[in-house]
């Protein structure tokens, strides 16, 4: 909502200045979004006289003019206007000025070889009218003596743009803003005498509101103005509209706009001669069409509130008028409409048709139902003043009566909610100034809500009004109490934060990427999950919710590789989506590593990142998070986006319940598909929601401390075993031979090749043997050695390597 201080002063008696005004507006909740200075800009535009106009040497349609801009100063200007001729008084814009219409900043420019210093302006370019043929012709008698002077009147022309919250339709009119300011002590509200139209002429055009279900129009007021001569608006009116960024069009349109901006009363003017027989306000029928003032044809659905005549739809009530009945400069008789349309009906219709108009914006927020007559009075009087003609009596059709709401307000509630005690006198003053009528009852106030405040429905609304106008700065600040009802984080949240930092300590940079992703990337990792489309994405690149943590991560790995960063470790912890219902999501940690380790190191040999790097990262993270390494169980059943031979699946224990994670090389086909160029790309995923959360407290995690003081023996064995046999199982089998005395099993060599059959491999293990309760004798050791070999050979088909 744009206003100017000048306009405010039509309603507000104040001696204060604009700076204070801006502060006060913000303090009472009418936020100042910007202040645009029109005057400084406009001072550049000068009244000027063409003293010579010659044909441009290189262009038939251009003229080179010598322009006098006062004090003997003459400027050469190239001009294309047909009417540019010697002696014409017009408006000159110097280099540096910004043309209001086009927002082009003028510079000294060569036009077909002739240098032009500035420009002569048309009314269109100055936003004065749509007249774009030729430059402005100012009357000699009026402007002869003003050559060199500013064309625009020097006024306090700052245009103040307010951000009006959707609950305050009343402040979409200057008067509403003035009323709020007055209530807060910034000036006094003026009560101008409203001229009531006293007419003996009947409103002869019949108006009917159809009694239908879901009728969107409750009241339709109208009057006829006959024999008008539509014309350009007078300067005061044009100036007023321009001062708030509106474009003057013609007197009739300008007057309706002015009344709308002044008291938030939207009106619509019809060319009465174009209305066939009479007005019927009714619900539209599916398939009906009409051409609106925006020159677009709209196809209507059932149940939209339309203004129609015998021929069909004239306009969408409260949203936009139609071309067929629009006023023009030669319109003679007009019908002025002032109606009340129901907000929800307005909103439904405009949403369906995707229509945004000033009237719609206002009606959907709620227009004062009691402003029907005053709107007609003001507008018709003004039109008559400017365009002449005769005004008819006002006709009001109604299907519903408006009654002011009454609220019983308990004044004590104010202190309860705000913590602030204020004097009841102050309360009454604020409410009275805002337009409330009040009666004091025993324990409460009986408040009658003004008709322009559809947002006031209950006591809390009253509290806000008083608090707002009285000033939030009056409310005292109470220091917070440290009282706690629950621990800050629950176990799942603690786990989340722990994993996040645990992964980062492994050398990964944390990324936060969008929860949505490119369908193309999502498909690479989605497996058999359901695709979840966003039905109104801002671009197809983020058209689906991600089914995997990898789709965005790999995208950004690729982007960084393209930046020539060769060695990358990125991870993200966040949601992935399994369905489109709330809750069908899970938290996943995903990490990707690309490139080499120790690239260009003088001391270490470089090597590609590999599966055992990410295996270490994921296992160490899980172990740090409190899961027992010796219980972790791994197999090689992994999703297809991993390398089928170089990837693993992790369970927290062998009784495979839920997958804790995956790790491995990313499938080379994926790298090929999205053109990733790197030496190696490996990754892991941890499914946080699948991890057990029944972790004990620290104090319960510590078992009894137990170490052995007896001699430890170490023995090395090498087994020739099936190539596909899993080392994990071998370790398990050896450990199980006698868990009491086999304290550790390490694999220190794996070998395939010479001297080993093709389908076999050699695994060398180092086994530590130590008893907790007695020294082991040589024969004990011999026994256990033999048992180990026998067991392994029996259970795995392996042979001890001699």
């Amino acid at each position, binding site marked *: 909502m744009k206003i100017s201080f000048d306009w405010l002063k039509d309603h507000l008696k104040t001696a204060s200045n604009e700076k204070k005004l801006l502060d006060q507006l913000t303090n009472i909740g009418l936020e100042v979004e910007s202040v645009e200075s029109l005057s400084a800009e406009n001072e550049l535009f000068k009244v000027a006289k063409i003293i010579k106009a010659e044909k441009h040497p290189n262009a038939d349609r251009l003229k080179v003019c010598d322009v006098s801009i006062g004090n003997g100063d003459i400027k050469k200007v190239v001009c294309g206007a047909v009417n540019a001729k010697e002696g014409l008084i017009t408006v000159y814009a110097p280099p540096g000025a910004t043309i209001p219409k086009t927002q082009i900043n003028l510079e000294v420019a060569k036009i077909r070889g002739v240098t032009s210093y500035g420009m002569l302006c048309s009314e269109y370019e100055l936003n004065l009218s749509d007249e774009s043929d030729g430059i402005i012709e100012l009357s000699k008698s009026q402007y002869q003596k003003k050559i060199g002077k500013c064309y625009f009147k020097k006024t306090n022309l700052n245009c103040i743009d307010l951000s009006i919250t959707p609950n305050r339709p009343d402040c979409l009119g200057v008067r509403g803003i003035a009323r709020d300011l007055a209530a807060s002590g910034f000036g006094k509200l003026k009560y101008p005498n409203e001229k009531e139209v006293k007419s003996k002429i009947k409103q002869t055009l019949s108006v009917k509101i159809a009694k239908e279900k879901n009728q969107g129009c409750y009241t339709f007021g109208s009057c006829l103005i006959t024999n008008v001569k539509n014309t350009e608006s007078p300067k005061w009116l044009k100036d007023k509209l321009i001062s708030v960024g509106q474009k003057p069009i013609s007197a009739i349109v300008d007057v309706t706009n002015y009344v709308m901006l002044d008291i938030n009363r939207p009106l619509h003017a019809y060319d009465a001669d174009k209305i066939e027989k009479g007005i019927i306000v009714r619900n539209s029928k599916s398939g009906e069409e009409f051409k609106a003032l925006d020159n677009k044809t709209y196809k209507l659905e059932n149940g939209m509130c339309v203004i129609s005549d015998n021929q069909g739809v004239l306009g969408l009530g409260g949203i936009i008028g139609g071309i067929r009945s629009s006023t023009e400069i030669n319109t003679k008789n007009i019908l002025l409409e002032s109606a009340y349309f129901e907000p929800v009906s307005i909103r439904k219709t405009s949403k369906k048709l995707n229509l945004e108009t000033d009237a719609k914006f206002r009606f959907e927020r709620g227009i004062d139902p009691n402003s029907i007559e005053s709107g007609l009075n003001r507008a018709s009087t003004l039109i008559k003043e400017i365009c002449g003609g005769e005004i008819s009596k006002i006709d009001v059709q109604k299907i519903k009566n408006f009654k002011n709401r009454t609220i019983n307000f308990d004044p004590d509630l104010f202190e309860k909610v705000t913590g602030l005690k204020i004097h009841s006198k102050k309360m009454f003053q604020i409410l009275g100034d805002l337009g409330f009528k009040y009666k004091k009852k025993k324990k409460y106030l009986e408040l009658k809500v003004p008709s322009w405040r559809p947002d006031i429905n209950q006591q809390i609304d009253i509290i806000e009004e008083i608090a707002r106008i009285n000033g939030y700065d009056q409310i005292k600040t*109470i220091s917070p109490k440290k009282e706690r009802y629950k621990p800050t984080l629950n176990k799942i949240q603690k786990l989340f934060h722990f994993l996040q930092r645990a992964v980062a300590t492994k050398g990964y940079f944390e990324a936060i990427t*969008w929860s949505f992703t490119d369908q193309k990337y999502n498909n690479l990792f989605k497996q058999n999950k359901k695709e979840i489309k966003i039905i109104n994405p801002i671009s197809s690149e983020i058209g689906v919710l991600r089914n995997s943590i990898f789709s965005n991560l790999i995208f950004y790995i690729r982007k960084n590789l393209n930046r020539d960063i060769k060695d990358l470790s990125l991870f993200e912890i966040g949601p992935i989506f399994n369905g489109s219902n709330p809750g069908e999501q899970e938290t996943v940690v995903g990490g990707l590593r690309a490139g080499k380790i120790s690239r260009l190191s003088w001391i270490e040999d470089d090597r590609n990142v590999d599966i055992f790097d990410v295996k270490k990262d994921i296992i160490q993270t899980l172990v740090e998070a409190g899961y027992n390494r010796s219980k972790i169980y791994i197999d090689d059943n992994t999703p297809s986006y991993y390398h089928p031979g170089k990837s693993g699946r992790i369970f927290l224990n062998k009784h495979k319940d839920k997958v804790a994670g995956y790790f491995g090389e990313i499938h080379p086909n994926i790298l090929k598909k999205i053109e990733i160029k790197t030496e190696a790309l490996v990754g892991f995923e941890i499914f946080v929601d699948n991890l057990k959360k029944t972790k004990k407290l620290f104090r319960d995690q510590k078992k009894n401390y137990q170490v052995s003081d007896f001699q430890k023996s170490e023995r090395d064995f090498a087994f020739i075993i099936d190539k596909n046999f899993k080392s994990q199982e071998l370790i398990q089998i050896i450990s199980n031979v006698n868990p009491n005395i086999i304290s550790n099993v390490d694999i220190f060599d794996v070998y395939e090749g010479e001297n080993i059959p093709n389908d076999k491999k050699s695994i060398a293990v180092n086994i530590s043997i130590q008893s907790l309760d007695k020294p082991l004798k040589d024969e004990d050791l011999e026994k256990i050695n033999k048992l180990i070999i026998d067991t392994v050979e029996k259970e795995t088909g392996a042979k001890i390597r001699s």
Partner: protein
Amino acid sequence: MSDLKKIKEETLSKLRSKLDLSQINELKSDLFGKNGKITNQFKKIGSISDSEKKKYASELNIIKDELQTLINLKISEIEILEVNEKLQKEKIDVTLPERPIIRGKIHPVSQTIDEISSIFSEIGFSVEEGPDVENEYNNFTALNTPDYHPARDMHDTFYLDEKKQKLLRTHTSPVQIRTMIKGKPPFKIIAPGRTYRSDSDQTHAPMFHQVEGLHIDKDINMGHLKGCLNYFIKEFFEVDKIKMRFRPSHFPFTEPSAEVDIGYKIKDGKIVIGEGDQWLEILGCGMVHPNVLKNVNVDSDKFQGYAFGIGIDRLAMLKYGINDLRAFFECDYRWLNHFGFDPLDVPTNYRGLSR
């Protein structure tokens, strides 16, 4: 001179000369080896008369001990010398680079969330969460924003179905609803998380982060709201004084509603929070609307309180001097390295938010 004395003198004189390890070992075996001079003296004992025997044996033992000690001393002296000499030759260029360092980083948004949680933890708030996909009811209707309410225009919403029943939450406020529906007052929670709006330009990203706050009890009023936010902002920006302005505004789910601005100035091209006469909007808040309490079955005659919503990314930008919101989500490795935090820097109450 007796043999013994002679042996001793000879040995002492040899020990005075410069010897290396092999020479002294030779000397040692000369004396104490199988046919060593001292060993041989011991062999002699048998042939000495009984009267002399005792004296001789004792003398021999003394000399033996003495020489042994001296030789061992010399050996360790030589060893130390030789090690020192060897080490001198092993000197390397210690200014060569260390083995490659692996460093990880925590995203500034995550760090900021942890900072926020730490601050609110200090005054008794606990952390709640809600799903990213919400139903229309929790995101709007229950928050007193009915269908066809113009306030819905303030949120450009991503929808997941044609009926517009399922959507990506446009704010963290639905967590209020979920928390209050499943529990009983009092409530004292914050809810950080991802939020989404179909809006994308230099200052808007389609995804961003908010933290919701909710405190409902019997006597929580606007003064508590001011106090809580004042405390938070001061702690967060780690300043002693903060200029704050509560300005009336409108949100359907709070009443009275306010927007909060903080004072700032630009000094040497950098933003200074808490001073100056420029205002910067940083959050929205208010007293929870009675209609909202009704929707979650909380008796608004008995309970009342406040709620707030803060843009986390915005706070991080202000605190850490980050200019471009969109950079948060672009994963530029250099950016993450520059603005990321060491994972060991966990913001806590007792250690403070930062080092």
